[in-house]
């Protein structure tokens, strides 16, 4: 049974003609409301993850549930399909279960709140927002076990629930939920903050509707979606070829010693419509690297990426959804069957962006960006300090932004919108640790006409015994370069024990016991280079070398020879560049740093870790995928 919308005074809205000015005014006002949601949340939330790093996403949708302003697209359609109950004035829904909202959120740490907005007894819009809670219970602090086999290990899972009914908070329910979390006061205040942000959006929507009239407001949202559809329609026609493009990339391992896992996608245009087909993607993992990918969210990723690359002026919303079709086979890494574990989903989520870039760029090499910081590495540290107080840190690391046709990738930055780092002085004053090194890693960005950004090295000195967890990837496969650009350097985590011993930590691990005085170097990866490094202005290479972002040896990878004082030795540079160009010949579009077999063969020698063994899949999943493939080919 789909959800039933209950209105006390249902009356149809009238589609009216709008002058373009009114439309633009409403568009701006909606954008303002969306930014105001962020502002309210950041200021009142408590967990560093939301407050400092901004791990949260707002949305305002029209009354059909289509996103008009926001970031990741709307999930309301899927929610309404799946929710067996009523949607009434005064309701506020809370859910944390990816399987109950068709992947609108992709792990249980994300608390999603949804508010239907009513005016005069009619539903006029929705506001929604989700934020990442530092802890939601489960088997490890941070609730993101790297070795989970089922979602039940990942903390308290909340199906779509009316946490407010008739605008009354269901306190028993909230208490029950908080009782299952390690840091209930953070969850409570972050929850309050999400509610406050959503109420802000509601106020703005009602004000707008009052200012312009309900029918004008309704029509304007419709028209904004239409306007976007028209613009995207042109964009798709101009940029997506009708011949099939293929691209594949990998998640390096599953934390259980197996990998890499393939994500494969085909893209082609049929008339006005672009089709994405993930056939060929590996079956779901028995571990926790599965990423339950919502088709609509993928459309949004794709639409936004196209807009950014080709025409950043377009305002993105859900209007273009009909122009895209996304096929994700059931039982794959990207559409796992409940109750598959999802707690390490961040790697596949990030990798989707590299896949997208590779797909869209093939037909338009002038707009092709390199691979890069397609992940959000997690670092967690928890324990009891000497006063017996529980401390628990969850933080997201940053790295090298890829080189792109428009310029260099920044060093040690975030690919995720609105994310920022936590100030180290803040960390040091609230957690028992000291950040001794905070710098980007010279030469880790892939050389190119536009250099890939450098990865980040953070040296954490622990001041109390505790446990750490790490989620990271790209330690086996490279952030690839494009159009002659070279790959960026891979990630590594090295633990220097206080007793002098050194441990090379795997990219995914939990409950590593650390002692006071131990020092962890968490090195993230660099972005791939974009364009021919031999074409980069030698002065710019010299500038980077003098700044310490590239070494002297690194400068030679651009064919640039530097003197003692970092000035360019032009004669030697010309000679070296000619020699390198002759040896290299025609540069490939993509440079992956070797195929998977080669990478595995060199793995132990280069990374100090044994190569992962080929993934074992559940037999039903393999059979299921085979069945779907047959069905698909018989339809043809």
């Amino acid at each position: 049974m789909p959800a039933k919308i209950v209105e006390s005074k249902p009356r149809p809205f009238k589609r009216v003609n709008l002058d373009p000015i009114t439309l633009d005014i409403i568009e701006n006002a909606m954008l303002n409301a969306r930014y105001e949601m962020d502002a309210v949340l950041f200021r009142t939330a408590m967990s560093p993850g939301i407050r400092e790093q901004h791990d949260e996403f707002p949305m305002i949708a029209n009354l059909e549930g289509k996103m008009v302003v926001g970031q990741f697209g709307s999930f309301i359609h899927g929610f309404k399909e799946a929710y067996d109950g009523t949607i009434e004035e005064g309701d506020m829904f809370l859910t944390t279960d990816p399987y109950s909202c068709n992947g609108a959120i992709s792990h249980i740490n994300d608390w999603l709140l949804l508010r239907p907005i009513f005016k005069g007894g009619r539903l006029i819009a929705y506001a929604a927002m989700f934020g990442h809670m530092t802890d939601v219970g489960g088997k490890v602090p941070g609730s993101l076990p790297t070795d989970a086999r089922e979602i039940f290990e990942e903390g308290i899972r909340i199906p779509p629930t009316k946490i407010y009914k008739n605008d009354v908070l269901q306190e028993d329910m909230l208490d029950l939920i908080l009782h299952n979390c390690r840091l209930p006061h953070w969850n409570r205040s972050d929850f309050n903050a999400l509610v406050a942000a959503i109420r802000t959006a509601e106020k703005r929507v009602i004000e707008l509707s009052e200012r312009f009239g309900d029918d004008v407001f309704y029509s304007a949202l419709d028209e904004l979606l239409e306007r976007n559809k028209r613009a995207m329609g042109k964009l798709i026609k101009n940029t997506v070829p009708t011949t099939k493009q293929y691209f594949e990339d990998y998640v390096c391992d599953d934390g259980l010693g197996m990998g890499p896992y393939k994500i494969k996608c085909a893209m082609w245009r049929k008339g006005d419509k672009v089709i994405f087909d993930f056939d060929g993607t590996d079956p779901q993992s028995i571990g926790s690297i599965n990423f339950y990918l919502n088709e609509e969210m993928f459309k949004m990723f794709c639409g936004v990426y196209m807009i950014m690359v080709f025409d950043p002026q377009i305002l993105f919303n859900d209007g273009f959804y009909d122009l895209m079709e996304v096929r994700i086979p059931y039982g794959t890494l990207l559409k796992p069957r409940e109750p598959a574990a999802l707690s390490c989903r961040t790697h596949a989520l990030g990798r989707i962006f590299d896949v997208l870039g590779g797909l869209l760029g093939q037909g338009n090499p002038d707009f092709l960006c390199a691979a890069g910081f397609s992940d959000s590495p997690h670092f967690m540290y928890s324990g009891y300090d000497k006063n017996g107080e529980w401390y628990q840190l969850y933080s997201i690391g940053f790295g090298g932004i890829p080189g792109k046709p428009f310029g260099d990738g920044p060093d040690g930055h975030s690919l995720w919108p609105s994310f920022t780092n936590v100030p180290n002085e803040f960390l040091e004053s609230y957690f028992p640790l000291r950040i001794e090194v905070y710098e980007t890693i010279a030469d880790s960005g892939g050389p190119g006409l536009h250099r890939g950004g450098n990865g980040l090295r953070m040296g954490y000195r622990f001041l109390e015994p505790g446990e750490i967890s790490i989620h990271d990837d790209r330690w086996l496969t490279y952030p690839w370069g494009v159009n002659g650009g070279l790959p960026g350097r891979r990630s590594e985590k090295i633990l220097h024990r206080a007793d002098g011993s050194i441990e090379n930590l795997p990219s995914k691990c939990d409950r590593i016991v650390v002692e006071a005085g131990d020092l962890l170097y968490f090195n993230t990866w660099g972005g791939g280079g974009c364009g021919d490094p031999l074409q980069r202005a030698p002065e710019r290479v010299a500038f980077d070398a003098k700044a310490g972002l590239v070494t002297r040896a690194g400068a030679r990878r651009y064919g640039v020879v530097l003197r003692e004082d970092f000035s360019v030795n032009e004669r030697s540079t010309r000679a070296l560049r000619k020699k390198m160009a002759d040896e290299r010949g025609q540069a490939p579009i993509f440079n992956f740093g070797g195929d998977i077999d080669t990478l595995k063969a060199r793995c132990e020698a280069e990374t100090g870790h044994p190569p992962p063994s080929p993934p074992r899949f559940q037999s039903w999943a393999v059979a299921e995928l085979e069945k779907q493939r047959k069905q698909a080919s018989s339809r043809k």
Partner: protein
Amino acid sequence: MSYRLGVDVGGTFTDLLLVDESSGDVFTAKVPSTPDDSSIGVLNGIERVCANAGIDPGKITHVMHGTTVATNTILTGTGAKVGLVTTKGYQQVLQIARSFVPGGLGGWVIYNKSDPLAPLACTVEADERMGADGRVVRKLKVGELRQALRQLKGENVEALTVSLINSYANAANEKAVAKVARQELKGIPVSLSSDVVPEMQEYERTITTVANSYVRPKVSTYIRSLQRKLKRRMQSVQLHILRSDGGMASARVAEAYPVNLLMSGPAGGVSGAVWIAQQAGFNNLLTFDMGGTSTDVALVQNGKAQLRRETTVGDVTVRASSVDVRTVGAGGGSIAHVPELTGALRVGPDSAGAEPGPAAYDKGGEAPTVTDANVVLGFLPTEVRLGGDMRINRERAAQAIKPIADALGLSVKRAAAGIVDIVNENMYGALRLVSVEQGYDPRDFALIGFGGAGPLHANALGKLMSSWPVIIPPGPGVLCAYGDATTRVRDEASRTFIRRFQDTSVDQVARIFEQLAAKAERTLEREGVKQRERSISYQADIRYHGQGLLLTVDFDLRKLKSKGLDVIGAPFDEMHRQLFTFALDSDKELVNLRAVAQGKPANIAATQVARGGKQALKSAVIGTSNIFVDGKDRTAQLYDRSKLRSRNVIVGPAIVLEMDSTTVILPDHIGTVDDYGNILITPAD
């Protein structure tokens, strides 16, 4: 007999306001600005205003001046080559910044980060370490630092910044670095982060201190040269510079901490607006300062401008208190365009600037600007003389708007109305940011419009905000000079003191406040402010333990001593509820403590205009203009502002002209002239 002088240097005119401190009488003068060396214009102005007053310039004791030198140095990238000393492991603190990439999902694709304000090649590390608790973990290794600084010498740095980790908790290591630096880099100004902004957050503290070093040589040269010229004419004069937070600093302090001057210009406008509105009887107002390329707005409650703990200029954001002025890239020169893909009408952020300027100015500009739209609509009639001699060309304006009209399928007039509506909406967004979004109801505020284009758009903004009356003060330039002249000498001392309420005591907190007060008072003493003229106020930045936000609470130190920390805590709960609809049960945490010392307010009487009747003088009416408003053609009366008298009521649609501004009164609105020459616009009913 002593006189104080307010000076505002604008792009076109330099305005001066001379105050007789005993009688409160004021005299004004307006002279052309001299952009190459603005002190020439200032000196010319001083001669003129003293002649008007019939006094010898030697009688002026205080010159109060708002300046945009610091701002422009950052905007034009013409600051000093700054060397930076960081803690070992932190050389790239500015390169990494906060890892933030603007522009939303996929924003990285088009984001190109600019190079740090202190080049990496001029950044060296010091081997030392301070703990977060203020305990020295490792003392400075002097020998290595000496080596590194010698290297910097070779790079010809012009200013040095020292910013070490956790120096907000203990400045000992920074001071040790400074000692070595003064030996190794003789004659180069050194700024310490623990001195400029002793607050937590390494990136923010570093960028703020680097910005201080970056603008320091330019500001210093400017202030010294101005001071030298003033002294030549007036032996006993003291020069004061207006700070971003609306306070006055002595020339000496301004020179050492120029990062506090980044909003000096807009702060003058806000201070002037506050003063003038108070004369007219309004203490709660929204200020609306619309210029050629941008618009500044601010909220004033109970006669006090809201302050913010950070200042943004271009892409540099620093931790320095400033009047909470929000700037949007919308002004008279903003260019309208219609992107092909969406067919939407956009205005700005590109601007035609002063050169070539709007098409209507006939200086070679062809792009359709907001000014051109105003010309097409008849709001800027051809009778207007820009700065006295430039004429407005209506045909050119219409030609410029034509392509926009065609793209939208509208008539030229309707397209022009659309451009004005959109730009109004952008400015409305900025006004909402400082009002509604901070929990204030704009209906409780008057709106004061100034700047070159403010009086043109103020009535429309008043309508959108429901903020009445809309106040149009006479002479937008003099307004800033009023701000300069009426500002009090002010200094603040602050420190970060992060403690939960239960982990500290009233005694401990009160003691710190007393120390801070003494420090702030010393500055005033050096500026010659007598003890009986000083007043001290106290502020605490506070939050719920675990939150990132800080709210500033003003309180009475005596009450704190007698009644305890709840004197700070209770107002915080209330503010939190007002801003965010809820308060929490959690522990409260002090973060920054601050004492603010101020000198006495100036004794000034505003100039009054002659009294008249309801009807304006016949000679005040100078013609009509055909305007297009609310989708209809109308005829507006044109008035000469200099002929208006107190109590005159002007019925809209009407346009009031003066030398450097044009006021629009919309249909169904009336403008009433008050005793000070302000036009107060309200709905007609």
